[in-house]
Structure formats: C-alpha cells, structure tokens
C-alpha cells in the first residue's frame, strides 16, 4: 500500500519537474535559433572561400593584416575607456542616488533613465549637433573666449568615447545603484559610530559591499561596447575603426563573408576572454578574506 503511494508520489514529482522544464523550451528554442545557429554558421563560413571551398586562407589574410590588429586595439581602447569613465562617473553618482531621499532618488533616476528611451541613432546625432565645430559647445567656448579655436570634439576618438559613455552610463548605474541601495544604513552608522569619516566608510564598507554591482555593471558595459557600431560610425568620422566597423566594411565593400566571419570570431573570442577575466577577478575579490580592516 505504502509502496504504491510512494511510486505514485514519485511519478507526480517527476511529472511536475517535466512540466516546469517544458516551460523553458520556447526560450531555449529561441536561444538556439538566434544565438547558437548563427555562430555555427559563422564558424563554417570562416573556413570557406567565396567559391565555397574549404580553406584557412581567410584566417591567414585577416590575422596578417595590420588593419585587424589596429581595429582590435581601437575596440579595446573604446571599451576599456568607456568602462573606466563609467566607473569614475557612475560610482559616485550611484552613491549619491542611493543616499538621497526616496523621492529625490526616483526623480534623479528618471533623468538618468530618460536617454534609454530614446533611439540610439537620435542620441548620436544629438551629440553631433552639440559637439561639431560650429556646434553648441564650441560656440559657447569660442563665444565666451575660453578657447580661441573650436575644439576637435567629434569625428574622432574623443567624440566616440563621449557618445559611448552617454549610452552606457545608465546601464552601468543600475546594478551599482541597486547594490548600494541594498546596503543596510545601520552599517554606515555603525562605522561612523566607531570613528569612520565618510571617506573611510565609503572605502571600508560601501565600496566592498557594492563590488558585486560594480562588477555586474562593468560586464554589461564591456559586452555592449565591444560590439558598438552606430556611435563610432557616426561620431568617429571614419577615423575610429573598431572591429565592428571593420566587419561592416569587409562585407559592404568587398562582400568577403569569409574574412568578416573571421573578424566576428575574433570579437567573440575577445568577449569570452574578457568575460573569463572579469569572473576570475570577481572570484578573487570575493574569496579574499577581508581580514584587515585597515582604512
């Protein structure tokens, strides 16, 4: 009798598990269709000549080209530059938001999020209006006599970086703000009661406890920026050429699917490498015994 009940219960449990598993099938299907298949296709493509024969020539061509390596360097410079500026600007901003009163914080948050609701193309051209030689910023600078000549703010690396930071800052801010807001206010009070100045409390309590959020934000920034296309295309003025632009050029100018695929794989490997490095660094920091409290 009990044996029968047991097997019936076990069957119920199995059925339930299967049911919940089946709920994830549509998502798995889409991921397979939209992510894995194209990657497989690109890998295949990278080993084919335009005539459709097997070759490693695409790799030889791409990897021996100086353009590839300079594009790789530009990609890293843009990504890491954006990341560095996001950390420098975003962390204090998140701190200010997290310590503001809820109503003020919500209002400021709405301002931060506003750009996210605007098309990236619109925003990028908006920057163009602001940054070009006869744009608003240069007009103000020369008009007020601060600079004699208009500054080269756009159609170069600087302009691209400004546009990318503007796009990424809200996305970086969200996880950092969430992590900081979750810190118990009494922890900061406790550290003050034991003699910590605000700076010491930030260094010894707030930053260590929001490191997870800063890491998440950094990964988001890196993964987004490594494939950025529109911003460098519009604000780079042809002088800023990361891998994404090289890929587009290879396709539109030369219709060279093989080389473009190799460049795409390069981008993938870069992303994977950085992902692994981020995770390793995160584990290193989390695993380290914060044995000393020395401020």
């Amino acid at each position, binding site marked *: 009798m009990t044996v029968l009940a047991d097997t019936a219960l076990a069957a119920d449990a199995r059925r339930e598990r299967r049911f919940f598993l089946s709920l994830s099938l549509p998502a798995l299907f889409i991921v397979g269709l939209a992510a894995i298949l194209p990657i497989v296709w690109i890998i295949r493509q990278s080993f084919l000549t335009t005539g459709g024969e097997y070759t490693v020539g695409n790799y030889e061509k791409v990897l021996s080209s100086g353009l590839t390596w300079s594009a790789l360097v530009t990609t890293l410079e843009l990504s890491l530059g954006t990341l560095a500026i996001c950390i420098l600007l975003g962390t204090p901003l998140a701190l200010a938001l997290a310590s503001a009163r809820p109503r003020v914080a919500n209002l400021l948050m709405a301002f931060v999020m506003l750009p996210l609701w605007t098309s990236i193309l619109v925003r990028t051209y908006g920057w163009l209006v602001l940054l070009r030689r006869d744009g608003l910023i240069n007009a103000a600078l020369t008009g007020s006599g601060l600079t004699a000549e208009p500054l080269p703010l756009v159609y170069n690396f600087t302009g691209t970086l400004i546009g990318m930071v503007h796009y990424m800052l809200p996305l970086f801010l969200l996880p950092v703000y969430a992590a900081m807001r979750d810190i118990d206010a009494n922890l900061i*009070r*406790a550290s*003050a009661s034991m003699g910590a100045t605000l700076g010491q409390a930030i260094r010894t309590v707030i930053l260590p406890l929001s490191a997870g959020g800063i890491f998440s934000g950094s990964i988001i920034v890196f993964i987004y920026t490594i494939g950025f296309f529109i911003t460098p295309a519009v604000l780079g003025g042809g002088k800023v050429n990361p891998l994404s632009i090289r890929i587009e050029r290879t396709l539109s100018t030369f219709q060279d699917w093989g080389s473009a695929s190799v460049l795409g794989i390069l981008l993938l490997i870069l992303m994977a490498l950085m992902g692994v490095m981020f995770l390793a660094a995160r584990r290193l920091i989390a695993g380290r015994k914060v044995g000393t409290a020395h401020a």
Partner: protein
Amino acid sequence: MMKSLPITIDSVRKTYGSYVALDDVSLDIQAGEFLTLLGPSGSGKTTLLMALAGFVRPDSGKLLLDDRDITRLAPNKRDIGIVFQNYALFPHMNVLANVEYPLALRKTPKVEARQRALDTLARVKLEGLSERNIAALSGGQRQRVALARAIVFEPRVMLMDEPLSALDKNLRETMQYEIRRLHDDLGITTIYVTHDQREALIMSDRVAVMNSGRIQQIDTPQQIYDRPSTRFVAEFMGEANIVAPGSVRRIDGADPSREALMIRAESFHLDAKLVGRDGVALDGTLCAKAFRGENWLLTLALDGGQEILVCIPAALASGCAELTTGQRVTAYAPAAKVHAIPGARA
C-alpha cells in the same frame, strides 16, 4: 576599568513635520550608570538614543558628555559605542576584522589591535570563533560580536538599541545577565533601549519610562513598578488595576483614599488573614478564570461595574479551582501594595 562619563540631556526637542518625536526631554545620567529608556514603539526612545549617537539632529536643546557640548559634534567624533538592533555587523569581514575595525580606524598598531580584539572576544565568550564569517554565526554569537565591537575601543558611553529583541526567550535572559555583568566589569555609562518592561526591571540601575516623546517617570526599577507616577506607567509596567476610591473599602473601616488607586493583579489575596487590618477589600463577582501554570488569573466585576484582574499564585490558590463564574468574590490587598496615583481617574 574604563573612564566613563556622565551625560546630560537638556530639553531636547525633535519634530518630524507636525509629529513631535521628542518633546523637550531632559535627563541626567550618572557616570557608570545603567539607564534604560523604556516605552512602546513610537514613544521616542530610539530617537533619543540616535540623537545621543549623533544620527538624529535635535531641533533644539543640548546634549552634554561630561561638561562638553556634543550637540553638534559629528557621530564619528563622539567616541560612543553602539550596539544596533540588527547588530549591523560588516558581512564582508570576519569576526576578528569586525572587532578590529574601530581600532584600525584609530591607527592602533596591528599587533596591539589584534591582541585587544582577541581579548575582547574572550571577554564575550567567543574564543576560537575569530576567523568565522558573520553569516556562519548564530543570533546569540552575532550579538556577542556586536558587543565586542562596541567595547573594544573603550568608548566612554555605550548605547544599545533593543539589542536582544531578535533572540529567543532563553537566550535573551542569558544575555540580559551577561550584558549587565559586562557593564559592571567595565563600569561604562550605558543607555539601553527596550520595549520589554521585564528586561528593563532586570537590567537597570534606573528606568526612564517614555511615552509620546516625553519621559513619564524616571526612577529605580522597584519605584517604577510599585510607585508609578502616572496611569500610563502603572499600566505599561504590568497587570495594573486602577480603581476608583469608591470601589475600595478599608478592612478596618477607616476612610478610604480620595484618589484613584493602583493595585497590581499579583498584590491580591483571597484570604483576608494574609492582609493586615489596614489593607483594602474589593467586592465583586467572578467573570472569568484562567489557570496559567504558576498562578490563576481571575477577572472580577466590581460592584461599580469596573473589571479588575486578580492574580493568585498557584501555591496559595487552593480554592480557585472550585470557584464558578457569577460567584461573589472579595479580593484583599495589603496597604503597602495600594498606591494612589495623583490626578488619575479610574
């Protein structure tokens, strides 16, 4: 023994909009005293504690540590140890790092800091747990770490905000005893906030009962319990009956008091012989009775209509089991346990 300091709270006022959290509170705390702020939630006790800590800025009034005005001093310069309600231990540091933290801020040499932290951990009976993570500690152990962290830098005053409210009953009683002993060893001026009147009675040199932003009474635990100065204090401190003078007759027939009288439920006897000739008697009918283990709780409707609670220890309550509701019962109380509350009405 640390050098502890007296505290003076001089007409401190704090409002939030139209809500008065502290209504011109004045209070003197002696050096080395264990004083408890007792009151229901919203009475202002935690606000007062946070004002002392420097996290709440008073609208007016003065806070003095010894004879130094600390009203406008930043929290990190006050040198006050605080034990928070939820302990507020740093989750990213282990036990030892938490306790070393205030010493590290004071640039204490590392070797000395470690030794002092370990000594303090031993004092709160946490030897051998110094390398543990906070997440791996039980509630009682966390409480001890919080204590160690608050005393390791030898502050001159210690503030405790309902530190035991998260612990279960047995552990709470052990910790009450240990906190009091720690206080006696260190001689540190301690201000303790709780809403638990038993805890306040057990631990304190003096108790300040607070309600709606004011101190209702400040006195020794015994005085607070036996001689409450207001109806609020009487009722907050235990099962108090406030009866109109008309419902009470003197056993010896003398004129009764003209003021409302407070008689605690456990002051009553059912046997007139256990009460002196100058005691009082209250006549009524039994409405309800309940056996509570160590005692019986009877509810009596007095002839004036008021209901009172009568608590008879099980050892003296041989007749209680046979009482039936509706039966006439007379409750007697000795004169020493009858306390007139000026201005209170039954």
